[in-house]
């Protein structure tokens, strides 16, 4: 069933499934509603990504980068004599 839903290239399998669901209303309904389930999930995804989310993420990364630099250059903050 997965393979069929994933639009398998296996022509033999496709034919078998299609033949079966033509004569079996229950299976037809299950296949049809499963296909529609997948389509609806694909069409309705969370695409919003608020700018603040990006900004807060970048702030945390910058903090980490600064910490890392301080650790790798422990004397950087001490002005040269």
């Amino acid at each position: 069933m997965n393979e069929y839903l994933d639009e398998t290239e296996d022509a033999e399998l496709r034919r078998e499934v299609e033949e079966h669901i033509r004569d079996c209303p229950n299976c037809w309904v299950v296949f049809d509603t499963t296909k529609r389930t997948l389509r609806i999930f694909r069409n309705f995804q969370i695409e919003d990504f608020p700018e603040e989310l990006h900004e807060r993420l970048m702030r945390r990364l910058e903090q980490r980068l600064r910490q890392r630099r301080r650790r790798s250059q422990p004397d950087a903050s001490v002005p040269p004599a």
Partner: protein
Amino acid sequence: MPRTRAVPNTDDEAELVSRARDGDGEAFAELVRRYERRVYRLVRNITQNPQDAEDALQDTFLKAFSRLDSFEGNSKFYTWLVRIAVNEALMKLRKRKSDRTVSLDDGIDTGEDVVVREIAVWDGDPEQKYSQQELRAILDEAIASLRPAFRTVFVLRDIEQLSTEETAAVLGLSVPAVKSRLLRARLQLREKLTRIFKRKGEDIFAYL
């Protein structure tokens, strides 16, 4: 003929990763910009909670940054990132539901969740009948009802469109395990949505 390089693409990704590994913050920021939306959508779908999703998003990139040395470059940077993101998202879930074990483990297989109970055609096109917000709420509730082990496979395969093999590699599962979980997740979601979208009160096969 020389190739145009106007649009950033995966060709320069190896270079970005290597510059970021040497501590180039700008290179890492570029990687963040490329993948932050996809990572956010992924962790949002797994955690089903905006705050947990933001924390998981930040922790994913912080971990990725500090572990760049362990990225070997034989997988795609994105799938490497996805592995970290899935772990972070599951960790947030575990924290929130400390009373229940959240794991990628299948648990006891009762076979109960593969049963198809609701066989009914849908009443028209839900995408026309419901508002965006209503539909979003219905889909969120359906996906939240899946066990994390199934939810994660569904999100990676059907929403993020990773291949079965990539999903198996990311989750450390066998290909047959991914296929079986995916089928169960799909059927459970179909069941939930059918309960809401089905044509009511008449012979369901009347149209045939």
